[in-house]
C-alpha cells in the first residue's frame, strides 16, 4: 500500500477513527490498533514476510530482557552476538545472498574454476533494511546500558512495526519511540495540523516533483544505449532532485502521519541541497541513517579518537558499508566508496587549512560550495541509478562523445513530456520546491507558517492542494525509490 495510493486514502481515516474514537480508551487499545493496522499495512505487500518482522521483534524483545537481567559480561556479550547474528543473518540471507554468491562465481570463474547454481530465487522483504537497524540499535543500547528493555511486548512490537516508518524510515531509536507507546496518547489539534501540513508538503514532493521527473529519468536510464549527452545530463540532474523529493517526501509523509497519532518521529532531512560540503550534506540527508552509522559503526570502530589515518579508514569503511546497505550490487559499494573518498578529501583539506571556513563567507563562495556539493552528489548518483555497471560506462561515455545543446535538450524534454504546458508545470513545480526549501532552510514549516496570518496559511494550503491535483502524476504512481532498500 503506497502512501500516494487511493487505498491508503481509505486506510488512514479508518485507522485514525479506530485509534482515537473506537479504541482510544487506553494506551493498550491504542497500541493494539497501531500494531494490527501496521501488520495489515505490511501484509498488503506480502503477508508471508510478516513472519520475519514478528520473528525479529520476538528475538530482540527476549534477548533485550536477558541482557538487562544478567551482570555477567561474557553472557551479555554472547547474547548481543546472538541478536546480531539473527538480525544480520536474516538481512544478509534475504538481501545479500545472491550478491555474494554471484560475486563468488565471478571470482572463481576468473581463476578458472566454474561454479554455478549458487543463487536462489529470493524475494527481498520490503523495509527489511530499515527495521533490522531499528531492532539492532535496541539490543545494542541495552547492552551499552543506555536503555532499559521494553516494559511490555506490545510497546516493543509496535515500535518495530509502526506503519508510517516501517518500510522506508526514518530509522527510529527505541530510546525515543518506545516510551511514546508507554503512555496514552491524547489528541492534540496543533500537532495534527502540523502533521497534515508536513504530509501535504511530502505529497507535493512525491507526486508532483519526484514522479514527474521519474518519467524522464526512467526513459534515459532504462535505455542507456539510446541516450546522448543532452538526455544524460538532464536525467542525471533530474534524478538528484527526484531521489531527494521521493525520499524526503516519504519521510515527510511518515512523520506527518505519525503526528496524527500524536507520535513524534525523527526529522530525516534538513534541506540538504543547501549544504556547502559533503560532510554537511550527510548531516542533512537521511539523518536517521547517518546518525545510526555514526553511533553503531563509526564510533565503535574508534571514530576520530584513534589518529588521522585510522579516522580516514573508519570514514571510508562506514561509507562503504552505507553503500552496501543501500543495495546488494557493486554499483552501491562503489557509490559508498566514492562518498568515503569525498569525505576523506574534505576532512584532509580542512585539516590542512586548504578549506578554511570563514564565519561570514561571501555569497559567491556559498553558491560555489553549494554547487560543488550538488554536483558531487549528482555525479555519484549515476552509480546509484544505473541498472548495471555497464550502463554507467555507456551513459558517462556519451559525455565525452558530444557537446551539450540547449535545443537538443528541449527536444528531448518535449519528446518525453509531449506537451509544452506540462513542461511549464514542471518548471513551476521545481521553482515552488526551491522556494519551499528556501523558506525552511533555517527553520521548520511550523515556525515558518506560524508566523503567517491564518488566511494566508489557508490560501497556501489550498494552492498546494490545487497544484498537486493539477500537476501531480496519478496515472503511473511510482514506488518510493527507497522501498528497494
Amino acid at each position: 500500500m503506497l502512501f500516494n495510493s487511493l487505498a491508503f486514502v481509505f486506510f488512514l481515516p479508518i485507522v485514525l477513527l479506530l485509534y482515537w474514537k473506537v479504541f482510544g480508551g487506553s494506551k493498550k487499545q491504542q497500541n493494539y490498533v497501531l500494531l494490527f493496522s501496521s501488520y495489515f499495512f505490511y501484509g498488503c505487500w506480502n503477508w508471508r514476510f510478516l513472519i520475519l518482522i514478528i520473528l525479529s521483534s520476538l528475538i530482540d524483545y527476549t534477548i533485550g530482557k536477558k541482557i538487562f537481567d544478567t551482570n555477567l559480561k561474557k553472557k551479555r556479550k554472547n547474547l548481543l552476538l546472538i541478536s546480531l547474528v539473527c538480525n544480520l543473518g536474516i538481512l544478509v540471507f534475504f538481501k545479500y545472498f545472491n550478491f555474494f554468491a554471484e560475486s563468488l562465481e565471478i571470482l572463481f570463474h576468473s581463476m578458472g574454476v566454474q561454479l554455478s547454481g549458487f543463487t536462489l530465487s529470493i524475494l527481498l522483504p520490503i523495509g527489511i533494511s530499515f527495521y533490522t537497524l531499528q531492532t539492532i540499535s535496541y539490543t545494542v543500547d541495552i547492552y551499552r546500558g543506555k536503555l532499559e528493555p521494553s516494559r511490555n511486548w506490545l510497546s516493543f512490537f509496535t515500535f518495530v512495526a509502526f506503519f508510517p516508518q516501517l518500510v522506508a524510515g526514518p530509522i527510529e531509536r527505541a530510546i525515543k519511540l518506545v516510551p511514546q507507546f508507554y503512555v496514552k496518547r491524547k489528541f492534540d489539534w496543533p500537532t495534527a495540523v502540523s502533521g497534515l501540513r508536513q504530509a501535504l508538503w511530502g505529497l507535493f514532493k512525491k507526486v508532483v516533483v519526484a514522479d514527474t521527473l521519474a518519467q524522464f529519468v526512467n526513459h534515459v536510464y532504462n535505455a542507456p544505449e539510446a541516450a546522448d549527452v543532452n538526455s544524460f545530463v538532464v536525467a542525471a540532474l533530474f534524478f538528484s532532485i527526484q531521489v531527494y523529493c521521493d525520499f524526503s517526501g516519504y519521510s515527510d509523509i511518515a512523520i506527518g502521519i505519525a503526528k496524527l497519532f500524536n507520535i513524534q518521529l525523527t526529522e530525516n532531512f534538513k534541506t540538504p541541497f543547501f549544504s556547502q560540503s559533503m560532510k554537511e550534506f550527510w548531516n542533512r540527508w537521511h539523518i536517521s541513517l547517518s546518525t545510526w552509522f555514526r553511533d553503531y559503526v563509526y564510533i565503535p570502530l574508534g571514530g576520530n579518537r584513534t589518529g588521522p589515518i585510522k579516522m580516514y579508514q573508519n570514514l571510508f569503511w562506514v561509507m562503504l558499508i552505507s553503500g552496501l546497505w543501500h543495495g546488494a550490487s557493486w554499483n552501491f559499494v562503489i557509490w559508498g566508496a566514492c562518498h568515503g573518498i569525498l569525505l576523506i578529501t574534505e576532512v584532509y583539506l580542512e585539516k590542512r587549512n586548504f578549506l578554511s571556513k570563514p564565519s561570514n563567507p561571501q555569497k559567491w563562495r556559498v553558491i560555489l560550495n553549494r554547487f560543488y556539493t550538488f554536483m558531487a552528489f549528482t555525479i555519484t548518483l549515476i552509480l546509484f541509478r544505473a541498472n548495471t555497471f555497464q550502463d554507467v560506462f555507456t551513459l558517462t561515455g556519451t559525455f565525452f562523445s558530444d557537446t551539450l545543446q540547449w535545443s537538443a535538450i528541449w527536444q528531448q524534454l518535449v519528446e518525453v513530456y509531449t506537451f509544452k504546458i506540462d513542461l511549464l508545470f514542471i518548471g513551476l513545480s521545481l521553482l515552488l520546491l526551491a522556494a519551499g526549501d528556501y523558506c525552511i532552510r533555517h527553520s521548520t514549516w511550523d515556525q515558518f507558517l506560524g508566523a503567517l496570518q491564518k488566511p494566508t496559511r489557508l490560501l497556501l494550503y489550498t494552492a498546494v492542494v490545487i497544484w498537486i491535483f493539477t500537476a501531480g502524476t496519478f496515472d503511473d504512481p511510482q514506488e518510493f525509490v527507497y522501498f528497494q532498500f
Partner: protein
Amino acid sequence: MKRFIYTLFVCFLITLLGSSILLFLSYDKEFRSTYRQNVDCNTSWMYYRLHQNETPIDVAFVGTSHTGCGVNDSLIGREVGPSINVANLAYCTKGRNLHYTVIKDLLATKKPKLIILEIRETESRDSHKDFSLIANTEDLLQHSYPFSFSYLENIVDGVKYRFLYNRMKLKNTLNYAPPVNYKEDYTFTPFYFYGDSIDLMRHSTKNKKLYQRRKKNIIKDQYYWEPEYALEQIKKLCEQNAVPLRLLYLPSIGNENTVPLREEFYRNLAPTWYPPNRLLTNKSNWVDGEHFNYWGSKKLSEWLSVQINSTLSENLD
C-alpha cells in the same frame, strides 16, 4: 478531537462529491482506447474499427492475448469469403468484465452474425486491469457482481481515469496519437519465430502440474462468481441482440488433452470449440508457453474458418 473528526468528515464529503461529479462528466471513448501507449494489444485500432471504420463486422473474436496472437482475422476473412468481415477484438490479460464491455460496444456499433469468446482452463477471479479505464460509468457502477471484491477498487480507479481525462481536457493536452504498435488493418499480433524448445518443455510441465493441482482442489464455486456473472451478462447481451455465441478453448501449452475446469458451466452458456490436439501439441506452433506463433495461428485460423463457415451456414438454414 471533535474538530478533527469534523474536518475528516468534511474532507471525505468533498472527496465523495468530487468523485461523483467526475463519474458523471463526459468521458471520451477515443481517450479510453488511446490512453495506453505501450500495450501489446492494439486497443486504439479497436476504437477505430468499431467507431470510425464503417465496414461491418460479421464475425468477432473476443479474448485475451491468446486470441490476439492466435487468431489471424485477415486470413479467416480470406478463407470464409469476401462477404464476411472478421475482426479480432482481443485485449491483453485476463478479466472477464472487460469482455462484457467490448461486446457491448461491438453490439452497439455493429451487427455481428457470430461472436466467438475465448475461454481457458480456468476463469480469472480478477477484474481486468483496464476495466475501469474502458467501461462506461453505468457499467462501472452496475456491471459488477453484487459482492465483488474489486467493485470499490474499480470505481476508485474509474474516478482516477476520469480525473486524468478532464485534467488533460482542461490543459488541452489530450493525446490521440496512435500507440507505437498501432496497425492500420488488423489487430492480430503475429510472432515470426519459434519458441525455445527447452523453455516450451518447462512451461508444458508447469502448466500440466498447475492444471492437475487446480483440478484436485477444485476451487469452490464462489471463486468463479465474478467471472461467471460477467459471462452470463454476455450471454444475455447476445441473446437480446440475437447473435449466436461460441466459446473457443485456447489453453496454455501442455494442456492439450484437457477440458476447462468449469466445463459444465460453459456447456450451459454456449457451444465450445476445441481446437484439434495436433495443433496444440506441435511445439513448432508456439512462440512461448502461452501464445501461438504465426505458423500456429495460421493453422488455428484455417481450422476456425471451417467452424465459422459451418456455424454461419447452420444459422442461415
